[in-house]
């Protein structure tokens, strides 16, 4: 892992394939994660701040299924998604009846409750040490893909190349699928709920049910992102699933533009590229300060974006202005 997350300041790392593949994997996982936020915030108007918690449920369920119960990895994935959807419904059933701002607080609380449970329920989750050793099935697929890559003429594929390819196939596939669904009558009801819940209800639409569906699908997307994150790290630990993960997802969402699924991928790629690329700023100051400087610069870029392009890169300005 050390060659993926270099602490050394070197130009070599900036051009290293392995490094950027690592960045790409994270950006891909974030894309899937943030697609859920886009569905909730951009298309349904519900402010889900618990996405990292849903991701934790997905990743931990998968890890526990594989390591504790010996269920096959490929079966554990859909099962974990179902469990995460169930969690989404449990969180949403009471809290989606709340006003938008209270819902946001309820979800962040749920997310922290999940993380703290993971930290303390040591028998189940391994506590702070987390869970290892669920990746065998993935590694055999990884070998297969490496074999294909070599057949295609890549003599020595990077170990991260298969994961990079798979995460982006999934991310692009899901983006395409969600965009298609958004254009259907179902998607139209979601947008109506976003615009004005009462108007939607007055026209015979069960707004509450649509908000629940939106949250459940978003939780499923978080679970998928969690699988990739777990595979990438080869372990799951509670620290990975803090609220910061959700906040970074929101930054990508705003950067790419609200109510645009393709904007999510663009936001995630730009954000991650900047965040990781800024590691290589060459200044005569300590590494700790450079690390802090990265976030300052990133923050300034985001503020600049808000000032000059508040709708984000692919967002529609009209929809944003007319929205309220």
């Amino acid at each position, binding site marked *: 892992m050390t060659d993926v997350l270099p602490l050394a300041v070197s130009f070599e790392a900036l051009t290293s394939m392995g490094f950027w593949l690592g960045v790409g994997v994270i950006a891909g996982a974030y894309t899937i994660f943030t697609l859920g936020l886009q569905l909730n915030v951009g298309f349904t108007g519900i402010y889900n701040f618990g996405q990292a918690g849903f991701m934790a449920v997905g990743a931990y369920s998968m890890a526990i299924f594989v390591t504790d119960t010996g269920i096959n990895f490929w079966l554990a994935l859909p099962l974990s998604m179902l469990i995460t959807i169930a969690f989404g419904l449990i969180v949403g059933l009471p809290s989606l009846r709340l006003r938008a701002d209270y819902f946001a607080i309820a979800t962040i609380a749920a997310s922290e409750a999940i993380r703290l449970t993971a930290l303390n329920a040591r028998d189940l989750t391994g506590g702070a040490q987390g869970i290892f050793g669920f990746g065998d099935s993935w590694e055999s697929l990884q070998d297969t893909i490496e074999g294909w890559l070599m057949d295609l003429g890549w003599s020595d594929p990077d170990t991260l190349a298969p994961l990079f390819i798979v995460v982006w196939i999934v991310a692009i596939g899901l983006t395409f699928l969600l965009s298609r*669904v958004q254009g*259907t*009558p*179902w998607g*139209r*009801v979601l*947008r*109506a709920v*976003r*615009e*004005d819940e*009462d*108007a*939607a*209800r*007055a*026209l*015979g*639409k*069960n*707004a509450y049910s649509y908000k629940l*569906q939106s949250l459940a699908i978003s939780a499923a997307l978080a679970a998928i992102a969690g699988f990739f994150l777990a595979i990438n790290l080869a372990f799951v630990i509670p620290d990975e699933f803090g609220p910061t993960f959700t906040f970074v997802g929101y930054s990508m969402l705003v950067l790419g533009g609200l109510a645009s699924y393709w904007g999510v991928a663009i936001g995630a790629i730009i954000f991650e590229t900047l965040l990781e690329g800024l590691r290589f700023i060459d200044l005569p100051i300590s590494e700790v300060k450079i690390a802090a400087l990265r976030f300052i610069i990133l923050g300034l870029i985001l503020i600049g974006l808000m000032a000059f392009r508040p709708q984000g890169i692919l967002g529609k300005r*009209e*929809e*944003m*202005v*007319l*929205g309220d």
Partner: protein
Amino acid sequence: MTDPEGTAAAPAAPSGNGAKPIFEAQGVVKRFGGIRAVDGASMRVREGSITALIGPNGAGKTTFFNVITGFYRPDGGGATFEGRPVLGQTPYAIARRGMVRTFQITKALAAMPVIDNMMLAAPNQPGERLVNLIAHPREWRRRETEVHDQAMELLDVFDLSKLADTYAGHLSGGQRKLLELARALMTKPRFLLLDEPMAGINPTLGRRLLEHMQRLRTEAGVTFLFVEHDMEVVMGHSDRVVVMAQGRVIADGKPDEVRTDQAVIDAYLGGG
């Protein structure tokens, strides 16, 4: 709005007299803390009628609307629509039964195009359920084409077809009122409840709105209940007038009867 021409266009068609009620409310109560905003309101709306609900500011008209359409939970009383109980049901369930409302402050779905506003309202669209998107792709697409045609026809009637692809948020106040009425009609309602449809629009447009109501009543058999502030506006355009004051119904009758009713005069002059 007190023009005599408007009066001339008034009900030539069946006035709904003697017809059975499509809607009936009995002692409806809604409290906010200690205030009884609706305090035992009872009324009937005859099938096929255009009934006006009037009353001075704070009479409880809009609250009454919100209670009977499910937006507020009632604190007492009962109501039936087409003979079956309606009070306490959810707004969407009531709307699906054909009792559809509009809002005092228009709720145009601003960041959606006009055509999407219209198509949204159409009932029986299987594509509004996720499973059907995969299970019955043909059905919902066919319904979508059908609904699109109906929407364009209706927009034509309301002179909004040129604006079909415009965001609803760009429409003028009057156009929004028309859109809201057109959108409500997309649901194929049997009973339309309009909360101050004439508020904030110019008199010409207001008159057209009333003409639309007359025509819909005759052609589609839609029953109307509309809230209005101004007593004069409703006189020429409604067959029945229900008057509310201080949360209660104080008069119910033909426009002429109500106009001369002492309780009504007192209420409007602040006698209550």
